[in-house]
Every structure is written in structure tokens, then in C-alpha cells.
């Protein structure tokens, strides 16, 4: 286990990011099976709904592709805010049985709930989201959009997703005056990102493309995974987990939830803050988390200066003498050893010819009698 220093802090970048105090564009939260981002997303929605803006109660749009809207916002959290929800599901609003009416009943505290079909290119879903956002922007200057998973979007070509977000006004703060602002937060399952873009089950690596939408990125790690990421050399091939062993009993235990917030400033400098977090009684508790050997610049190990003192001298308890006096050291340095003279001589070979030597250059093997 890496050396760990944990100190309490009064200010947290993570809380700022979750409440859109640091940036008002798009915040991707990269989570994994071993460290789910749903608690943080729920906390962010809860904080948003409990904070009134200057223009009135907050307006929140939930885009649910993996969870039910009532699992993200229950009636006690609305606090006078306005909650709209769009749920992507096979079949859309044409659901067999009585399930849709049961869902409508469970989501009665929301102002609007729409069930939308997931077509192959998500065209219908994008259309409904765009239409809803535009309608809300006509009444409110700023709306907050939360995606419980961006994975289905990321299976589409990246250009389509960026164009879709640009249409909503996401990632462009200057668009506020024109058509309103859609500030978004989305969960992205990082362990589904695959280097092979042809794989139909995974999603292509999109991190750099999404940086165009906002300067802030949040990564969630399990403590063990964080250590693996920071120092892969510590984890040899034998230490790596076998295939499909995505979970073990050490995941998500208190104190092992690590969030890394990357903030790209306008000066193009990257500010990184890593913290251990937990959500206790609806409060976000964070502690600054520093791996001691990564405090040095550029991730290089810090070189410690070793200062010898009489107390820590290992030679002082020996029964024989291993040290030299100054006089002995001077005599040792001035001594010229014999092989030094030999090495300084030139490398010429001196050969005395014999009587039987045959120096016939045309046939050097004449003396062999072949």
C-alpha cells in the first residue's frame, strides 16, 4: 500500500464542481463498476434542487437511460424546484401492460415524464431532449441537465454527440444570452471505454473529445485502482486481476472512494485535486488525499537528501576501522598505482622475425603443404 497522507480540508473542488461553481458548461464524471458515480449524481441533483437561483427555483431535466427517474429524485427532494424527466426505453411510450402507468404514479412529483424509444441512432431520443430543452429555455434562462449514463450516446459517432450538445447550448457559456444555457452533468462508465472502436459492446475512447465541452473532468476510483493508475510499475502482471473479476470485497468500503478533479484553466495549466470522499447523511465529506511520492513535480519520485549525523552513523559501532583520516585519504589519492603507467603506454607490438618465417603475401598457406 502506498504511503498515505490524509488531511481534512474546509474547501473542496469536488463540491464546487458538483454544484457547478467552478464551471457552468459540461461536467463528465467517469465512474466504474468498482466505484459507482450514482451517489454523487444524486447528491448533485439534491443540492441543485435545494438551491434557489437568482431567477427563481431551479429547473432540472433528468435523462434516464439506466435508472428510473424516481430512483434519482424522490418526492422529498424536490423542494419547490421543477423536475422534468426523459426515460429512454425499448418501445418508448408504447409499453405493454401496466408498467408505464405505475411509473407515472411513482413519478407524480415530477412536472413532466416522457418515455422515449431508443432507436439505433438515438434520433428520437435526441429530438425529444432538444425539444424539451428548447421549450424550457424559453421560460428559464438556465436549466440543469443530468444524464445517468452517456454510454448509449457514446456508441454513436463522436461528431454527432458534440453537435447535439452544441445544439443544446452545452459547452458554450456565450450562448446564454441567445438561447439559454443547458448546464449538463453526465456519468460515463470508464471501464466500458475500449481501445478497439470496432467492438460493438464497448465504447470508443472519448475523453479528449469531451474535453471540448468543458474544462472540468471528474474521475472516480476505488483506492486500489487509484494506486494502480498512479504507479503501474508497482503492479506486475501476476498482480493483475483475472478476466471478469471486476469486483472484490474491498470495493466501495468507507475511505476507499477516491475522486480526482481535473480542471484545465484558461492559461492551459492543469490543476488536479485528488480527494477521498463519502456521502454521509446527505452531506459530502471530503479529505485531501496525497500520495507522498507524487508530490514532486511531474510525478518523479522526490529525492531525499541523506544527512549523516553521529546518531545515525552505522559505522560507529564496528569493532574495526573502516574510515580514513584526512592524512590517509590524501596519501591514498596521491598514490600512483603501477597499472596506471602500463595503461598510459602506447599499444605497439614489437616482433622479432624468426628464420623459418615465410612472408609470402601471395600464398600465406604455403607452409601447410595442402
Amino acid at each position, binding site marked *: 500500500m502506498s504511503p498515505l497522507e490524509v488531511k481534512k480540508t474546509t474547501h473542496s473542488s469536488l463540491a464546487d464542481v458538483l454544484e457547478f461553481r467552478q464551471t457552468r458548461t459540461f461536467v463528465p464524471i467517469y465512474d466504474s*463498476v*468498482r*466505484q*459507482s*458515480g*450514482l*451517489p454523487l449524481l*444524486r447528491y448533485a441533483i439534491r443540492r441543485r434542487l435545494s438551491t434557489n437561483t437568482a431567477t427563481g427555483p431551479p429547473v432540472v431535466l433528468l435523462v434516464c*437511460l*439506466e435508472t*428510473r427517474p424516481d*430512483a434519482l429524485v424522490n418526492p422529498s427532494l424536490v423542494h419547490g424546484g421543477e423536475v422534468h424527466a426523459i426515460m429512454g*426505453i*425499448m*418501445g418508448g411510450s408504447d*409499453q*405493454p*401492460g*401496466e*408498467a*408505464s*402507468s*405505475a*411509473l407515472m404514479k411513482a413519478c407524480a412529483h415530477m412536472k413532466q415524464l416522457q418515455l422515449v424509444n*431508443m432507436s*439505433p*441512432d438515438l434520433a428520437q431520443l435526441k429530438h425529444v431532449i432538444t425539444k424539451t430543452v428548447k421549450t424550457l429555455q424559453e421560460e428559464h434562462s438556465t436549466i440543469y441537465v443530468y444524464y445517468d*449514463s452517456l*454510454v*448509449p450516446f457514446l*456508441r454513436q459517432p463522436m461528431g454527432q454527440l458534440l453537435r447535439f450538445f452544441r445544439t443544446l447550448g452545452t459547452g458554450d457559456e456565450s450562448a446564454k444570452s441567445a438561447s439559454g444555457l443547458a448546464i449538463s452533468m453526465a456519468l460515463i*462508465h470508464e*471501464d*466500458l471505454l*475500449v481501445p*478497439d472502436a*470496432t*467492438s*460493438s*459492446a*464497448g465504447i470508443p475512447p472519448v475523453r479528449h473529445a469531451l474535453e471540448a465541452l468543458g474544462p472540468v473532468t471528474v474521475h472516480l476510483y476505488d483506492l486500489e485502482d487509484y494506486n494502480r493508475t498512479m504507479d503501474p510499475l508497482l503492479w506486475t502482471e501476476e498482480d493483475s486481476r*483475472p*478476466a*471478469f*473479476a*471486476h*469486483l*472484490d*470485497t*474491498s*470495493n*466501495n*468500503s*468507507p475511505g476507499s472512494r477516491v475522486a480526482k478533479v481535473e480542471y484545465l484553466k484558461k492559461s492551459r495549466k492543469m490543476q488536479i485535486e485528488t480527494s477521498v470522499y463519502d456521502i454521509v447523511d446527505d452531506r459530502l465529506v471530503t479529505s485531501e488525499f496525497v500520495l507522498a511520492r507524487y508530490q514532486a513535480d511531474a510525478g518523479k519520485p522526490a529525492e531525499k537528501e541523506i544527512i549523516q549525523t553521529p546518531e545515525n552513523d552505522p559505522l560507529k559501532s564496528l569493532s574495526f576501522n573502516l574510515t580514513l583520516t584526512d592524512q590517509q585519504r590524501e596519501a591514498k589519492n596521491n598514490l600512483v598505482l603501477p597499472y596506471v603507467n602500463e595503461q598510459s603506454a602506447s599499444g605497439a607490438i614489437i616482433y622479432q622475425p624468426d628464420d623459418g618465417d615465410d612472408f609470402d603475401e601471395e600464398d600465406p598457406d604455403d607452409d601447410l603443404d595442402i
Partner: protein
Amino acid sequence: MGFPTLSTALGFGPPYHLPTQGTLLITDTLTSDASFLIHHIVTNALQTPPPAPHSPESPPSAGTMPTTAAMGVAKPRVIMVGLAHIFNHYLLISRKLGLNLLPQREQRQYIYIDGVSLTSPFAKHRRFHPADRSSQNPTAPDYYCPPFDPPTDCSHHATAYTSSQRYLTDLLHIIVGFMDIGGVGVGTGGSGDQSTPSPSLIFDDIAVLWNLGMHPSAILEFLQACKFHVESRNGSLTLLAHTDRCLSGQAQKADDEGPLATGGYEYFVKSLMYLASYILQAESLPSGHSRDVHGQLLHALRGNSGNMMERPNARSSCLASN
């Protein structure tokens, strides 16, 4: 009841029904087969007598998860989508566990959808079509999954997706239809209809859909819809998937050709984990094979908080050979 010690180890609490509105993912390997868990769940659901609603003076014991008993809901209806075995397989094993599935089927307590016999397009050319004899055979399934014709051009995303979605939409309508038919003197689901039992939908195993060449996005959307319908009726969804190392992406890189070898199965299983509330991982022992112990079982909870593992419920149990 299935395996009493296992019920206690899983921690679902008496009467050991699966938690309502929960999705359970079971993963296993060839060396540690977890299909016994399917039989355990079916037997528990059908055989355990309906519990009396608990009174405020006797709250459920601490540390146990909310169950159908805690919700005041009795026996669920089991809808088994058998993609790996025929009905007789489940019938014979259930008899060994002391449960006869035939009367349960007559009471519409147990529904069996056959995904084995006709799912493959080759089944269309069979001389003796199993569906033709359904009226005479008491062990014939309640429904046969129609053949799935994989598209000729699997590389085209939209074509493969549309073809898979068409099949899965039909299957979804059939499953939901079975959820909504009336039961005989059983507990109620969440829809308010007093004659409709809460469903327990089981897929054994879901990897067969992947192996048939269906598009993973379509499968995941289908399961998402199944979860939605099950949760709306206070039921539970159980999935079984194989996680042998040879199925992982790393092992398939060497011969990465064709729709089945896209190296994405591991990501498919991960996506199932995102879908699940509870995960049971059956693994072989790291120390090797033992005569009395077949493997170990990791029980992970995702729960409402979204945390994959909560300490009180994260446990590892041994699978004994009794």
C-alpha cells in the same frame, strides 16, 4: 426450500425470496457452475409458504435485506426464459429438491418460455417440430421463442440492431403478457390488480442471446425494459452469464474475426453489472480443486445508494458439495 445454508449465506432473509424491485446477476465459470442458484431461487419462490405480514412488534431482523415478505407480498410468479436447457431439465432437478413444477404450471405459478428448441434458424428445418406436439405433451413449454435470423450483413450497425430489436421486442411482449395474466390465490404485484402475482423473471442464461449474434445494445435495452416492467410490478429479475477467461476480450484478440469474436463479451458482462442491483460471482477456489468444496461465492450489493459493495452485505461464501 432450496439449500437452507445458502439462503442464510445470501442474506435475503426469511422466507428467502429475492428482494423486490431487484435485479440479480449471477456469473459463473465452467469450473464453478452456478446453475444450482437458479434452481435454488425457483424452489424458494414456489415452495416457501406465504409468510404472515410482520407486525410492528416484530420487525425484520437487522442486517437482512427487504424481501417480498417485508413488503407484504406473497409468492411471486416465476417466468423462466430457458435459453440453455429444456423444461425437463428444470422439472427433474426441482423434483430432487422436493418441488413438482407440473402443478405449478397448471396454476400459472410457473411459466416456461423455451428459448432452446426453436431459437436457432436451423430449427425451421427440423423434421419433428416440437411446437406441433405442444397440446399432447404435458412438459411442453408455455411458449417457444421464434427463430432468430441473424442479418446477412452483421457488420452494419443499424441492420444488426434492427434485426435483434425486432426479435427482442416480440419476446418482451410475450413476457409482459405472461406477467399480466391472473393468478390463483397468490400475492399481488404493485399494479393494484389483486389477482396478478408479482413476477420473478429468470434468464438462464443470457449469454445465449449474445452467442446467437444479437446486437449487444439491443440486448441491453431489452433487459432494461424487462427490469422496468418487473420493478413496476414489485418483482425481480435474475440473469445468469458465464464469465470464463476464454470468453474475455484478451483471449479473443488472437482470432478476432466475425460477430461473435469482437472481443466485447467482457464489456457486455460489465454492462450487465451496471444493470444489476445484486451480483453473485461463483468462482473456483484460488488454491485449486477440493473434494468437498467446489468454489466460493462473492455476494455484491449495488443497492439504492448505487454503491457496488457495502460492507455489511459484502461477503464471500464457500460452495460445499452437499
